[in-house]
Every structure is written in C-alpha cells, then in structure tokens.
C-alpha cells in the first residue's frame, strides 16, 4: 500500500490505456485502476471500423484487447477497483476504492468515461434487461427472429442498428429529424439506408415502452402531427448519447454544469498534477482515436510535471465561459 505510482490512471478505456502506454514507455511507474473489464465503452461495440489501422475483421473488444496488451507489454500495472473517494491535494495524491483499498500517485489521470443516456419514458426502467437494452453486443442474440426498435440516429445508433439486422427479423429506427436526415457519419448513413432490414420512422420520438414481464410494444409519437402510433416489438435499443461517469468527482475537480471535466489542451484540470482524458472530458468528438490522443497528451504533460515544469490550469473564468 505504500507504493507510490508516478502516474495513477482511473479507468482503463482507450484514453486510460494509452496514457498507460505513454507513461510506461517514459519509464514512469504507471498503474491503471479499472472497476470492470478494461476497454471502456469501446469494448461493448462490435462494429468499429474508424480506428486507424484497424478495419479488417476487427471489433471493439478486439481492438481494446490490443490496447491492454500494449500497455501491459510496456509495464503498466492493471489494478481492479472502483474509485469512490480521492484526495487530490498535495504532492502525493491518493484514491480509495469501494472495497477500501488506497492507491497513491504523484499524478492522477482521470479517465472515467461515460455511460449511455436513458430515455426517461414510461416503462423503460421496469423493462430494462427484459427487452430494453443499451448494449447491442450484450443482448442482440436474444432478438433472433424478433422485431426491435432503435432510438437515436448518431454513429452509435446507426452502426448498432446495422449490427442488429444480423439477428433481428426487423429493425425500426425512430429518428427525431426530417426524412433522410441522420446525425451519424455519411458512410454509415448510406449503408443503413440501403439495408433492406432497416425501417425508418421520421420526425418521431419514443413515448412509452409497453409490456408486462417483457417488452411487447412501444408508442411512437410524431412530433409534427402529435399522432401516436403503436408498434409491436420485442426489443428497444437506446443510443441517444451518454452521460459522464463523474459523480465521484463532484467537489474534487472542476466540472461543467453537465458533469464533464474541463481541461486545457494539455489535459490539465484545475488541480496541479491531475489530468482528464476521454469521453468524460469537455470535447467535440468522443471517439476511441480522440480518447487515445488525450491519453498520450496527458501522460506527456504528467511526465513534464514530474520533471518540475510549471504547468497551466483550468481557471474559474474558463469554467464560467463553458457554462454559458
């Protein structure tokens, strides 16, 4: 327990693991704490073809296994635990896990990631795990020969909808925009539009999920006409963005009003020696490649901090600007 790491990383998604690679290769004593299985949200998606160099027969879990092996190869220690408390003041910082273990680091890189956002409609909570899902790779198998609805139209929604067509009888995507308008990348949009198993409902939102013990149907509301249509489905897959996993950081580092961690371009937070990377950071594009870039920058910034370089900081003024 007396071990003090040079870099202690919280969260082993792509950002945290890349920080591990860079930290270890700089010969710094580097450890990453992970509450579940390494890989973050990227490890829950089968369809991943936008990480440079990985486009043939690769999957989210496959690429993330490579990240993990890479970090461990250079000496990153992988620890298991869910961080519930942190002491970020002073030169030696510490984090405490749910099971009571304490780990110490001269610098901390926060890589807590994000969790899928829920719809907040009637029936969603009680039918979670009974037809309502936020993880296509976890649950797609159940829907062989059954009908499912997908809510959302960003990259995740459209890519997972295509993945689901390999299992489900039909996949109906409920899109809030006008016909033909999708928020996802153009290549995925074109592919999905051509997929005969995907049906589209435009200008609409999900109003309610129905079912006793399992999902039996949904109510879809057209936002232009207010017309409500009943749809018989066995599954509802929700991909409407994410919320940052930063509850445990409240009062520890500055967060914006949505709970994201603001940093400057060196990944510095408002606390010296504490950095943030990945999906939980304030940023424009949340992807594996940007998380990895964050991780590399944070590790290098941490290295410079350990060498005694003066660093910048997120200031209250910056935070105020963000919250506008």
């Amino acid at each position: 327990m007396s071990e003090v790491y040079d870099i202690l990383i919280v969260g082993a998604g792509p950002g945290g693991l890349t920080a591990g690679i860079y930290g270890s290769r700089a010969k710094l004593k580097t450890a990453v704490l992970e509450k579940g299985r390494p890989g973050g949200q990227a490890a829950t998606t089968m369809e991943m073809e936008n990480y440079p160099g990985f486009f043939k027969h690769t999957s989210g879990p496959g690429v993330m296994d490579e990240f993990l092996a890479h970090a461990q190869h250079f000496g990153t220690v992988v620890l298991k635990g869910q961080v519930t408390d942190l002491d970020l003041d002073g030169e030696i910082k510490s984090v405490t896990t749910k099971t009571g273990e304490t780990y110490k680091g001269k610098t901390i890189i926060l890589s807590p990631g994000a969790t899928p956002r829920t719809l907040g409609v009637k029936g969603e909570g009680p039918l979670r795990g009974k037809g309502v899902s936020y993880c296509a790779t976890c649950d797609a198998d159940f829907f062989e020969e059954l009908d499912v609805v997908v809510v959302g139209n960003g990259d995740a929604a459209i890519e997972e909808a295509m993945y689901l067509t390999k299992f489900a009888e039909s996949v109906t995507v409920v899109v809030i925009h006008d016909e033909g308008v999708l928020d996802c990348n153009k290549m995925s949009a074109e592919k999905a539009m051509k997929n005969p198993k995907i049906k589209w409902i435009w200008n609409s939102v999900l109003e309610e999920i129905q079912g006793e013990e399992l999902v039996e149907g949904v109510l879809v509301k057209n936002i232009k006409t207010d017309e409500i249509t009943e749809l018989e489905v066995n599954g509802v897959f929700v991909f409407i963005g994410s919320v940052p996993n930063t509850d445990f950081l409240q009062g520890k580092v500055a967060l914006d009003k949505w709970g994201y961690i603001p940093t400057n371009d060196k990944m510095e937070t408002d606390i010296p020696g504490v950095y943030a990377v990945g999906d939980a950071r304030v940023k424009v594009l949340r992807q594996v490649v940007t998380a990895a870039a964050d991780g590399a920058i944070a590790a290098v910034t941490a290295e410079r901090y350990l060498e005694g370089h003066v660093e910048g900081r997120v200031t209250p003024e910056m935070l105020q600007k963000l919250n506008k």
Partner: protein
Amino acid sequence: MLELSKENFDAEVLEAQGLVFVDFWSPKCEPCMALLPEVEAFAAKNAGRAKFCKLDTAGNRRLAIAQKVMGLPTLVFYKGGEKVFTFDKEALEADGMAAVETKFEELVA
C-alpha cells in the same frame, strides 16, 4: 459452477428444492466477462451452501426468454424452483457482487 442448458435446466433449477444461483451470461457480453471471475470466486467461496450454476444464453436464448431474461448480465436466485431475487445489469453496475453476497446470506439462512 454447474453449466446449464435446455437439457438440464428444469431438473437442476426449476425442480430443485434448495437455493439455486444462476448466472445468465454470454461470451459476447463484455460486462458479463468482466463479472465472471468475481461470480466464480463467489461460487467457490460458498460451495456446498447452495447450488451455483451458469447459463450461456448464446445457445439457450429461448430458455432465457422463458425465464424473462432478455438482458445480460443477469444473476437470479431460485428457491424451490421459484425466482426469489434478480440482479440486472444496472443493479450489478451500481453495487457489484457485494450486494449479491449480502442477498445470498439472507436467502441461505
């Protein structure tokens, strides 16, 4: 842990008298794989106090659906063939295996 399938599920779970624990999982489900070592440790630690089983839903999806399980991971306690408590993904993410152990002690007593 005892591997369940459609062949032995009724006999081992629904027709069993005592407390039976079932881990519904699939190798494709990353959260399930993350949880598996802890589930196995929990089963090993309490061996003999209840029956500990796991069901790979990949080849047994109709069976899982019949048990009203359509999301993974799901951990279920059965007693006298009846479902007595279910932990879904959300509950497991929030409280982990500690909550399962507490529930187990309550049910096994």
